[in-house]
């Protein structure tokens, strides 16, 4: 395994089983906190009679009877699949885990299975990060191995990567703690996040978003109009005005970055378009009134 290779001492050495270590370490960490540990949007606590209980942190104070009780750790996958509103969740660390459920699992294996559906890979990465062994892959390293329709992300500028990370990775849209940088010498400038789940490498959602931002960058160079707006910026503004004029702004799906009214795309516009529209004002300060 990449993460364990520094530990390798030769072909005959017993294999270090990082996944099993992580499973045990996570369960022990939970056992140390009878009141429960928070992780992402959930609270995990050891049960006095043995086993573990998981629920949404916002449901921490609710009586069990108010929640749908599950006992099969694999049902965590269904719990994690859709938002409260029934939207598909392509990124399990988005802060949109639904409430209203309670999962009781037996043993650390059950806990590990459930956790890997709620927050895939998170437990093992949490463990490796705590022991200082998590291998980090920078944006440039990740981009270098992309191919096909994603090859163009190799040409995304450093500024584009910074803005894409601010738009795509901060806690408002993803609860992972971003540990990777643009490259070895260029740290990310965005807020890396406060949560327990490490993010060791740009994910496929980020790469897809980076591809879209690269398309924006390309048009910026050639297609600006007299007031400095790009065709896609004008498309987004038009879509926003038209939607708002009907009384509601229905957002595109979470990873539908080719649609104007996508939240991450709009977050990117707030960073790059709003300063153009309000050259003298602070983009983050709303107007009084």
């Amino acid at each position, binding site marked *: *395994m*990449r*993460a*364990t*290779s520094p530990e*390798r001492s030769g072909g005959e*050495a*017993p*294999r*270090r*089983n*990082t*996944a*099993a270590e992580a*499973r045990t370490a996570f369960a022990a960490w939970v056992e140390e906190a009878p009141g429960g540990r928070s992780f992402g949007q959930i609270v995990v606590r050891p049960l006095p009679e043995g086993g573990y209980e998981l629920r949404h942190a916002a449901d921490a104070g609710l009586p069990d009877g108010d929640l749908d009780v599950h006992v099969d750790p*694999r049902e965590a*996958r269904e719990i994690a*699949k*859709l938002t409260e509103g029934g939207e*598909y969740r*392509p*990124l*399990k660390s988005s802060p949109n885990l639904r409430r209203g459920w309670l999962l009781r699992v037996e043993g650390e294996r059950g806990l590990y299975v459930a956790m*890997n559906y709620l927050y*895939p*890979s998170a437990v*093992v*990465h949490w463990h*490796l990060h705590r022991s200082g062994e998590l291998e980090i892959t920078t944006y440039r390293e990740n981009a270098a*191995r992309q*191919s*096909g329709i994603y090859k163009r992300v190799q040409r995304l500028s450093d500024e584009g990567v910074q803005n894409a990370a601010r738009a795509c990775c901060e806690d408002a849209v993803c609860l992972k703690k971003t540990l990777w940088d643009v490259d070895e010498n260029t740290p990310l400038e965005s807020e890396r996040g406060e949560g327990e789940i490490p993010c*060791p*490498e740009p*994910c*496929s*959602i980020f790469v*897809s978003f980076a591809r879209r931002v690269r398309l924006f960058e390309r048009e910026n160079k050639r297609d600006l109009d007299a007031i400095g707006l790009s065709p896609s910026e004008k498309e987004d503004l038009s879509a926003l005005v038209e939607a708002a004029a009907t009384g509601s702004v229905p957002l595109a*799906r*979470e*990873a*539908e970055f080719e649609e104007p009214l996508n939240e991450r795309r709009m977050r990117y516009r707030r960073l790059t378009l709003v300063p153009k529209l309000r050259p003298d004002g602070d983009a983050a300060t709303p107007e009084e009134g």
Partner: protein
Amino acid sequence: MKALVIVGHGSHLNEDSSLPVYEHAALVRDRYAGEFDEVVECFWKEEPSMRHVLDLVESEDIYVVPAFISEGYFTQQVIPRELGLSGPVTRRDGRTIRYAGPLGTYEGMPDVILERVDDLLEGKETRPGRTALVLLGHGTDLNKNSSGVIYLNAERIRERGVYDLVEVGFLDQDPPIAEVVGGVEAENVVLIPVFIAEGWHTRETIPEDLGLTGEVTEMADRTVFYGAPVGTHPSVADLIVSRARETDEREAELARDVS
């Protein structure tokens, strides 16, 4: 310990894409509990990623089976790259990772297609006359393997002589599926998508382009029976296991080749 890792494409936009992988994984856990200690799903566009899935696996003997129809860009380039595989057998850090071939080219695939046809036709009336089986593939002019696997399965089924005609049609290359379904000389046309999952094509574009109203569509001169994608059939779980077992059989020879 032995682990089976099933690799799916997955989707950023809809949950249909990964569903067959989860369902087959669940079936393998039930049916082959004594054979695999772990059965783990991973994806290109969902989590856990191929890049990180081996971090989650505890076993030292790992069988990777791609839930893809044809040999091509994903099975030859993306999956080996993301999983860090050096060939059909990769030995790394005390682990052996065996990489199986895609599902569509496996010799057991025609049986799954025919099971799908039986499920579709069960309890339904056919017209007197000929019955044609039409296999629908995605196809792409970029890679001959994409259509090749459809022709391969058509030929294998043709050899069995079960149907009067066995034809192929595609979404993105010739012959176009609408021409095949409308033109084949048969009173009953059984159309089976050789796809892994339900999705936009199987639910929307294909029925719309062909004027299908459901599983059975009566047309002036023919009845068209439209099946679910082959990849969602429960027998695919067995096919995945067969693919994994096959890597053992060829391992010794292949290991010599890559070392």
